[in-house]
C-alpha cells in the first residue's frame, strides 16, 4: 500500500488532495464534510474585506450532451466578515488537527494590511497561507488579485511583505492571464515564497444568448468576463505547471482541470507536490476524493511507488523545446482491419484536414470489405504508408479504441534535432 502523505514546506498533508479556494471551501461546515470525505487539506475561500456578489454568477459549456466541460464564475472572494471566517478556521483546526487548513488571503496592497491579515490568519490556526494574486474578475478592477499577479514586481513585493510577517509557509497563487507565467513565478520565489500554486482561472466569456444578446452568465441582461476552469483547462494548466517547474526550485501546487486521480497524477508527474480541486467538487461533491485516493494508490502500487515523490516531476525533463525533438523519429498509422467499423472519419480527416495519406474505401465491393452483424458491407480504408507523415490525426478521430495505432518505423538515421541540424550548418 502506497503512502499518500506528502511533506510540503515543512508541514505534512494526509494526502496530496486539497480543496482549492472557492465555493466548496466557503464555510466550516463544508470544509469539515470535505475532510470527512477524505480531502487532505482545504484552501479557505479567500478572506478579505467582505464583498457583495451578483446573481447569477456561474456559467458552463456543455459538449455533445455532456455537462460542464468548461466552467466559469464571476463570483468574488468571501462575502462573510473576516472574523467569522477566522473563527470558523479555528473551530475546524480544533476538530481536525491533522488536516490542513490554508487561509487564502486578499487585501488591498498595503504592507500593514497584508501583515495584519497574515497574523490574524495564523493566530486562527491556519497551517499555511495562500496569497490570492490570481482572481481575474472584479477584485482585479480594485487593484487586487490578478492586478498584482500580472506584475512581477508587485508579486515579489507583496510576497515579501507576507513572508516578513508569516511563521507558516507562504504560497503565492499565480494567474495564467499573463504573457509568461514563469516570470511571475520567479518573482514570487525572489519575494521569498515557500511555494507557488497555479493556475488560477482564465479570463473568459461563456457565450451569448442569441435571442437577447446577453452574455453568460447573465446578470440583468449583462455579464462580465469571468474565470474559466473545469476539465477543458487541464492542458493549459499542465503546460504552465511544467514551465514553472523548469524555472523555480520551490514546491508547486498544481491546479486546473483536475477531476480524477489521473489528472492529479499528471500534475504531479509535471512537478506538482500538492493538487487542488474545485470545479469537479462543484459538479459532483466532496465524495470524488475517494476514487482520487483509491485510484492514485492503485497506480502507485502497480508501479511500486512508495510516495508521490517517487514519480513527482518525472515527466518534466521530457518536456522539451521543439528544437530539441528528434526529427529522425518516424511513426506511421496502421488500421486494424478487424476493428474498423467503416465510418471513413479517418479518410475524410486526412484528406481534408491533413496530408491525403488514406485511400478511400470505394462504395462498390472491394477487397477490404467485410460484413457487419446485419450482413451489410463495411469498407475499411487503407493507409498509404509512403505518404503517411505520422501526424496522429486519423488515430485521434477514430471512434474505435486501438483500431488505428501509430507504428514506429526505422528511418535508419541517428537522432537529429532541429537545433543540432542548425548547429551543423
Amino acid at each position, binding site marked *: 500500500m502506497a503512502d499518500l502523505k506528502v511533506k510540503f514546506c515543512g508541514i505534512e498533508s494526509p494526502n496530496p488532495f486539497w480543496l482549492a479556494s472557492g465555493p466548496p471551501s466557503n464555510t466550516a461546515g463544508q470544509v469539515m464534510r470535505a475532510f470527512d470525505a477524505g480531502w487532505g487539506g482545504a484552501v479557505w475561500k479567500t478572506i478579505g474585506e467582505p464583498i457583495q456578489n451578483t446573481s447569477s454568477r456561474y456559467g458552463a459549456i456543455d459538449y*455533445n*450532451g455532456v455537462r460542464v466541460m468548461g466552467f466559469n464564475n464571476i463570483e468574488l472572494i468571501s462575502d462573510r466578515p473576516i472574523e467569522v471566517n477566522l473563527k470558523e478556521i479555528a473551530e475546524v483546526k480544533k476538530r481536525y488537527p491533522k488536516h490542513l487548513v490554508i487561509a487564502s488571503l486578499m487585501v488591498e496592497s498595503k504592507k500593514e494590511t497584508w501583515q495584519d491579515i497574515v497574523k490574524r490568519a495564523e493566530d486562527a490556526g491556519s497551517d499555511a497561507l495562500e496569497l490570492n494574486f490570481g482572481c481575474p474578475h472584479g477584485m482585479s478592477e480594485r487593484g487586487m488579485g490578478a492586478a498584482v499577479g500580472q506584475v512581477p514586481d508587485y508579486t515579489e513585493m507583496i510576497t515579501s511583505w507576507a513572508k516578513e510577517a508569516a511563521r507558516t509557509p507562504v504560497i503565492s497563487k499565480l494567474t495564467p492571464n499573463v504573457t509568461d507565467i514563469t516570470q511571475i513565478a520567479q518573482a514570487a520565489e525572489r519575494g521569498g515564497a515557500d511555494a507557488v500554486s497555479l493556475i488560477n482561472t482564465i479570463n473568459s466569456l461563456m457565450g451569448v444568448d442569441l435571442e437577447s444578446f446577453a452574455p453568460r452568465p447573465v446578470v440583468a441582461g449583462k455579464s462580465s468576463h469571468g474565470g474559466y476552469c473545469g476539465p477543458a483547462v487541464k492542458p493549459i494548466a499542465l503546460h504552465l505547471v511544467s514551465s514553472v517547474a523548469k524555472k523555480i526550485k520551490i514546491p508547486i501546487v498544481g491546479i486546473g482541470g483536475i477531476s480524477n486521480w489521473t489528472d492529479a497524477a499528471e500534475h504531479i508527474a509535471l512537478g506538482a507536490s500538492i493538487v487542488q480541486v474545485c470545479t469537479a467538487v462543484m459538479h459532483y461533491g466532496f465524495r470524488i476524493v475517494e476514487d482520487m485516493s483509491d485510484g492514485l494508490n492503485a497506480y502507485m502500487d502497480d508501479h511500486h511507488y512508495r510516495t508521490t515523490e517517487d514519480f513527482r516531476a518525472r515527466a518534466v525533463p521530457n518536456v522539451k523545446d521543439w528544437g530539441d525533438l528528434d526529427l529522425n523519429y518516424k511513426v506511421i498509422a496502421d488500421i486494424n482491419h478487424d476493428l*474498423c*467499423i*467503416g*465510418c*471513413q*472519419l479517418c*479518410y*475524410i480527416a486526412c484528406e481534408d484536414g491533413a496530408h491525403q495519406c488514406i485511400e*478511400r*474505401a470505394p*462504395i462498390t465491393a472491394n477487397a477490404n470489405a467485410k460484413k*457487419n*452483424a*446485419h450482413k*451489410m*458491407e*463495411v469498407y475499411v480504408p487503407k493507409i498509404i504508408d509512403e505518404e503517411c507523415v505520422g501526424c496522429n490525426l486519423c488515430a485521434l478521430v477514430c*471512434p*474505435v479504441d486501438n483500431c488505428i495505432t501509430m507504428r514506429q518505423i526505422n528511418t535508419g538515421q541517428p537522432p537529429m534535432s532541429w537545433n543540432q541540424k542548425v548547429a551543423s550548418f
Partner: protein
Amino acid sequence: MTLRETAPKLAPEQYEANFADISPRMTPRQAAIEAARCLYCFDAPCTIACPTHIDVPSFIKKIASNNLRGSARVILSANILGESCGRVCPTESLCEGACVMVEKGEQAIEIGRLQRYSVDHVLDCNIDLFTAGVPNGKKVACIGSGPASLACATELAKWGYAATIFDKNKLPGGLNTYGIAAYKTRAKDSLREVEMVKRLGIKFEQGKEVGRDAPFPLLESQFDAIFIGVGLGETWSLDLPGSDLHGVYNALEFIERTKTRNFAEVEIGRRVACIGAGNTAIDVVTAAHRLGAESVHLIYRRGESQIPAFRYEFELAQRDTVMFHWHTQPIRVIAESGAVAGLECVKTRPASGATKSSAPEAIPGSNFVIPVDMVVPAIGQKPVTEFLRPVKGIELKKNGTIAVNERNQTGNPKYFAAGDCVNGGKEVVDAVAEGMAAARGLDAWLGHPRAILSRSDA
C-alpha cells in the same frame, strides 16, 4: 350477423394504452444525446442503405446543433414522407442495420426516431420548407394518393407542374392512412403529412375512381402526363370451404377499421386466427391482441426461419403472446349456425425433392381444429391494375404489376408508374424513392419544362 363470440370490450384508456405509439417521440434531451452519439460518418453507410438516400449524418448533426428546421429540410427534400418513414421503415434492415455502431458492438443510432423528431417539429409548427415552382404550364394527373403518388406529385409541384391527385378513397394517404398498424402510425399522422403536400398547391380529388368517375380519354385530354401509383388492392381471399362465412375478414379491411373507427367499435373475435406470416399478418395479430382477443393464432405453412416478416415485426407478435402454428396449413373454415367456429388445419412438411421455394406438402391424417371465432387471411395483396386494360400500350405482367422502363415509363409514353403496383409490394420508403424517380423520368420526357428554378432546387 355477428361473430359467434366476440372479445369483451376494454376500457377506452386500455385501448389507447394498447395502441400507444410503439416508439414515442423523443424529448429534446433524448434527441440531443442520441444525435451526439452519431459519428458523422463520411460516405455514410446509412445514407447508402436508405432507398431515398437521405443524408442521415447531415440531418442528425443539425439536430445536435439545434437546427431542426434545417434537419427537416435535409430529410424532406430526399423524402417528403420522412415522418411516416421514420415511424414505419424497417430501419434495422435499412439505415440502422448499416450503422457503423453495429460493427462497433454498440446499439445503432436511432435514425428513425431522430428523423421523426425533426419532421414532427416542422409539422407541429406548420413550417413550410418548400414552395411550389413557378408554373411551367404542364399538368400531371396522379392516380392514387399513397406514398408513390405523394412523392411524385411533390417533386413535380416543386418544379412548377400543376399536379392533381385522383383517389377512390374518402381519405388521402393510401396505405399510410388506412393500412399500417395503429401503434405505429395513426391516420391523423398520415393526414398531417398529406396537408404539407397539399400546401404545395397539389389538388386532391378524393372519392374519384379513375376509369369510372374520371374516364381515361378525359384525363388524357386534360393532362400532359399521367402517373399511376395505385399500390396493391385487398388481400387475396382464401380458396377454402367456408371462406365466405361471416367472421372471415380481409386483412387490410380489418386494419383499416382500426384506423378509421374507435377501437371499441372494431368487431373482434374472442379467438382469432390469421393465415400468413408476412408483415401484414403481424399487423393483424398484434391488432387482434391489442383489441382484446383472448387467443390469437398465426398459421403458416412453412417454418419460423422462412417467414417473410421482418425480425422486428415477428418479435412484436411474440411479445403480444401470439401462438404460432408453424408448418400448418388451413383446409377448411368450420361453421356453427352460419358463423365461424373453427379452422381445420393440417400439418405440413417439405415436399420430397423440393426446392426452397416450392410449396410444402400436407401430412396425411394430421388434421386438427383450432377453435376460433374469426379468421383473417393475410396471404398477400391482389394487384388492382385491371382498370388500366382500356389504356393502349400499358403492359401488365403476369402477376398484375405494371411493366415500366428505366424512367418508370409504361408502354404508353404518356403514362408513368411506380410503387407497389410496379414492384409488387415493398416498403413505404421504396414507393417514395420510386415515385420520385418517376417524377424525374416524367420531367425528362417532357423536356424539363421549368420556368425558372424554384427556391427548393437552389
